[in-house]
């Protein structure tokens, strides 16, 4: 059982995500507040997502993709750890 928990934690660590929201936002000259308004979330939430401290759910990720006119995989990237290679 303990091994399963450790494996789950390691797998979680292996699929950490990063995103390109800050770059995409800068390209459009949007502030965090403007993006928050378009997504109908708070600026704190945009900041948490942008800095990778909060991973959005699939519906919110689709909304973010729609706002930028891109696909989810163009915005959220899998951050490969050494265990993946």
């Amino acid at each position, binding site marked *: 059982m303990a091994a399963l928990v450790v494996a789950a934690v390691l797998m979680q660590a292996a699929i950490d995500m990063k995103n390109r929201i800050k770059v995409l936002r800068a390209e459009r000259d949007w502030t965090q507040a403007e993006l928050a308004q378009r997504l109908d979330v*708070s600026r704190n*939430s945009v900041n*948490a997502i942008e800095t990778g*401290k*909060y991973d959005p*759910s699939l519906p919110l990720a689709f909304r973010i993709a729609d706002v930028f006119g891109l696909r989810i995989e163009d915005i959220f990237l899998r951050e490969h750890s050494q265990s993946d290679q």
Partner: protein
Amino acid sequence: MSLMKLPPWAYLLLALAPVPIMFLPIFDSLPSAVGKSVGIAVLFWCLTMSWLHWRNLDEPARVAHKSSWYCGGAAGLGAAVILSTAVIFWPEANSALVAMVSEPKHGSPESQAFFFGVVFAAIVQLAGTLAAWLLWWSRRS
């Protein structure tokens, strides 16, 4: 700006606004039926505003609430159990508690003691939830 689309924090303030009414001295002198009706109306108002608060929260804010309630609330309840057990073995606290419930304004000493127990557990649980909520956001800001 309609009542349905205020900032989430505004609903919390609206929910808590009528609560002091329950502690006004005049509340005790009201006829029992009127007092109960006011109490139920305040409770209904609090629940409605809490529902509107939840409805206007975005996804990360809801996750913060759920996580805080689960972790902080559970830890708070655990602390309440430990503290209430400690009261039994702490003579000063024990006699203070007995003095509080010995001459209740309403109900029997037993029902008053039960009420204090529930309120105490709720306060400690809310304190744990608040601490966990602050920690959740401080790690993501």
